[in-house]
């Protein structure tokens, strides 16, 4: 069999396309006219990214020579090893931008939590697929799988890296759902996020979302106890968020939430980033202001524009066509991977692919959602596009694993 017929060219192509777009945007954000306001180590980010991309390509290619079995075999070791490093980081890590999630490796700064995501996916997928049946139908298995995610999630949260922790936690509904967790319970698990989001926007919307979700849960699952729990939880969430926003949160925390819902509330303070980000994207128009021509980018109105706000750089300089292309590329990539999961016979591979998809999807949602003022600003990179070596390497690692699993799709069995 010719390997190139089985190779997933779409995934590989999109991966490289997004990386190239990222390079262009990082160049503009660090090497353009704006460089005069940036310290040299940030100007060098473009070249560092080039190095990381080169390393990642080599790793992805190497991974294609590995047997797919290897991933499930090493999954627990991989998970355990990075869990230990995560704990190590918690005590001896380097703090950058308030998050203690970095370690020094031969002079390189490495963000362990990024790779922890890969280890978690592998371990959970392995756990859920190494018995005869798909496991999450049984709630005790589901709970253990969830625990596998919660442990690194809490550790990362303790490192003060909220974004990555959020990504880890979001693996729970996706992976458990895939492995057979009842629909109603799956919906119940993600319902706090949806209801919470709408409640912060507006109490009425939150209430409507809660009612709709409770009704859907009732009809999907027809288990009265679940519906009751759901309703109680929803009431607690809505009440809790209202109480938290109005009386519990520190003024600056409250300001961040209010600023997201209404940035003009404090245009010079917390709302500043949101307004500048929206202005950058909005002023790009259909075709953008042109490469290195974005005033918001080049006059340094955007914070962290090479990582968390890279989407604004693309939106401003390449307009709707450029920024829209990025989203469409992600959409094709994710749909392609998920259909790959659907047609895969091996449960481990299915679970891994679903986990990878969910991680990319959450990154895409939070990064572009923050930049466009849909979500509060949570610092998360846009996979392949944002500057960041460990993130790029980890995300590419997942691409490499996905490419491998998909390439050997026909040879794999339903058993592992």
């Amino acid at each position, binding site marked *: 069999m010719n390997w190139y017929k089985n190779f997933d060219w779409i995934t590989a192509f999109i991966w490289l396309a997004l990386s190239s777009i990222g390079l262009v945007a990082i160049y503009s954000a660090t090497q353009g006219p704006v460089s005069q306001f940036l310290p040299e180590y940030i100007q060098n980010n473009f070249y560092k990214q080039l190095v990381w991309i080169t390393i990642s390509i080599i790793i992805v290619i190497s991974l294609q020579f590995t047997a797919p079995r290897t991933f499930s075999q090493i999954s627990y070791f991989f998970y355990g090893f990075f869990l230990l490093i995560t704990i190590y980081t918690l005590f001896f890590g380097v703090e950058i931008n308030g998050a203690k999630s970095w370690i020094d490796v031969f002079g390189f700064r490495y963000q362990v939590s990024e790779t922890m995501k890969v280890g978690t996916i592998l371990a959970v997928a392995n756990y859920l697929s190494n018995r005869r049946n798909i496991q999450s139908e049984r709630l005790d298995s589901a709970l253990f799988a969830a625990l596998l995610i919660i442990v690194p999630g809490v550790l990362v949260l303790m490192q003060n890296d909220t974004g990555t922790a959020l990504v880890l936690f979001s693996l729970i509904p996706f992976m458990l759902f895939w492995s057979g967790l009842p629909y109603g319970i799956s919906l119940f698990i993600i319902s706090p996020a949806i209801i919470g989001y709408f409640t912060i926007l507006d109490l009425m919307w939150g209430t409507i979302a809660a009612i709709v979700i409770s009704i859907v849960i009732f009809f999907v699952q027809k288990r009265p106890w679940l519906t009751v729990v759901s309703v109680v939880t929803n009431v607690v969430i809505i009440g809790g968020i209202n109480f938290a926003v109005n009386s519990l949160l520190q003024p600056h925390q409250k300001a961040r939430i209010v600023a997201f819902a209404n940035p003009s509330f404090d245009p010079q303070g917390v709302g500043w980033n949101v307004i500048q980000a929206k202005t950058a994207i*909005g002023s790009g128009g*259909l075709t953008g202001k042109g490469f290195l021509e974005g*005033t918001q980018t080049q*006059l340094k109105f955007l914070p962290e524009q090479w990582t968390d706000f890279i989407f604004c750089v693309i939106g401003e300089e390449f307009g709707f066509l450029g920024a829209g292309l990025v989203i*469409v590329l992600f959409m094709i990539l994710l749909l392609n991977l*998920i259909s790959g999961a*659907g047609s895969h016979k091996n449960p481990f591979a299915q679970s891994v692919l679903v986990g990878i998809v969910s991680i990319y999807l959450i990154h895409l*949602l939070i990064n572009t959602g923050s930049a*466009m003022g849909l979500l509060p600003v949570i610092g998360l990179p846009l996979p392949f596009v944002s500057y960041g070596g460990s993130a790029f390497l980890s995300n590419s690692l997942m691409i490499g694993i996905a490419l491998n699993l998909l390439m050997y799709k026909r040879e794999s069995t339903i058993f592992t």
Partner: protein
Amino acid sequence: MNFRQRKRIRTSIRVLQAIILGITIILLGRLYKLQILDYETYNPLSKENSLRQEYVQPARGLIFDANDNLLVDNEPIYTITIVPSNYNQEKNKLLARLLSITENDLSERITEAQRFSWHRPSKLMAEVDFEIFSNIQEHIYELPGINHQIESKRHYPQELRASHVLGYLREISENEFQQSDQYLLGDKVGKTGMEWFYESYLRGTLGISYVKVNALGQDLGNYEEGVQNQAPRAGSDIYTTLNPDLQLLAEDLMEGKRGGVVALNPKTGAVKAMVSSPFYDLARLAGKMDRDYWVEINADTTTPLYNRSISALQPPGSTFKPLMALIGLQLGVITPDTKVFCDGAYYKGRAYKCTGQHGNQDMLHAIQNSCNTYFFSLMNKIALERGLNAWSDLVKTTGLGVKNNIDIPNENRGIIPDSAYFDKLFGVRKWGIGDIINLGVGQGVVSVSPLQLAVYGSSIANGGYRIQPHLVRGIRRENQSIPTHPAKDRINWLDSTGLGIVREGMRRVVTDGSARWYANIKAAEVAGKTGTSQNPHGQDHSWFMGFAPYKNPEIIVVAFIENGGYGSVIAAPIAALMMEKYFTGKIQRQWVYERVKNFVPKPYEPDEDE
């Protein structure tokens, strides 16, 4: 894998596909809304964001004298600025030495600048001497972050003061600021004098320059090479009618006295000199104001800020008599030949004293001798036969008791009473002929300003025209001169017969009457009238109103000296010296000049109110 599991996987795939599609479509929709639908909102926002509008102050218009020489121009003042983020604190020692301040003072100033902004320029030291400025410029290469700003202040190149006429500038008030878009907070606007009256001309138009800035507010140079910048338009220049020699002389003569002098062209109303004494030094109020001086002139009991030449309220005394004669003729209560016998007083209920025993007086002689009896009698007739209001109406047509709308502020309308005024002052039916008869000699409830006397005197001098007194003869805007056209109206009731007699009488005042000692100059034939306004608070005030040449008047001078005594003693010589200067360019009678300079008004009570 059983059927149920396969079905479950198919459904899960659909659900996940739906989630992916849903999220990406929401993101695309949001992107579409921001970039396509709201483009018009965000694009201008990004432009404003990265652009800072900076205002460029226009050069204030200049003020010229009658000979087209500068009276007021602008002088650069240098302000040293600092951008703290670029500044190197190790240079404190050098900078403090250059600024001639202590290092402590300097670091305090720098701290203050830092508190404003690290990245934007702040004023480090305002209005430094040119010497300090040039010292700093010499060392500027060693002083990163230090820059300068050149602003301007009013500068007065001539020796003369003309403080009340020119006026001073002060910071714009909150109220004025809100009424105009041509000012920034902290800008100076004219508060008095011509600077106030012609503010809208002198000001000019603010320029705008668009400067690119980054999020730190750092200045990145002109936007689009400055093509969109709007240059400021300099204010218009003001050409005044002030004769600098006369003005300077009048100020010299009035020094140490209180009062006002107005000299104008009786045919046009162009003011040649206008002095209110005491005056003040405008230069000390320009730029970074001399606060002590400001407090001093505000607290001064001699009220130097008060413009006596247009605001003083004093009875005109005998200078009023020529007008009385003309009104008597117009109201038909006398003819030029009507004679009144003066035995030293006029009796009506009580004795109204005259200055002498003049015997039979006709109009001409009554003016020449300034016979009070004649004018008491005349006022009595007017009041009885035509009424006070007929008199009051005619007086007001000559510019007394009304505003003459000269082009500087704070003009006082004075008092020319009518029955309503007396009703208000004394109460209805509580006043009588006794209050009126005094008015005939310019005493009692009547008050005028030097300017008003000059306006009324001009009508006699020019043959019956009411002139519009003015200080500005033209305005030049962008090399285009716009002359002003002051009005000049015929006062219909003034006829040439009456005017002839009155002028003859006034000529005789100078040749044979009260003004003959000091006002009868060789340079021109002067006609005039002295006046002494009775002052219950001290020595009488001294008036003189005179014009020359008698046959074809070119100039009228009114001098008013508080507590100067008789008009002939001090007011007449001052006016006469000015006329001498006007016609010959120099002072011919040095002894009169010495006399005026050495004259001390006395006695006056220090707490007397004006």
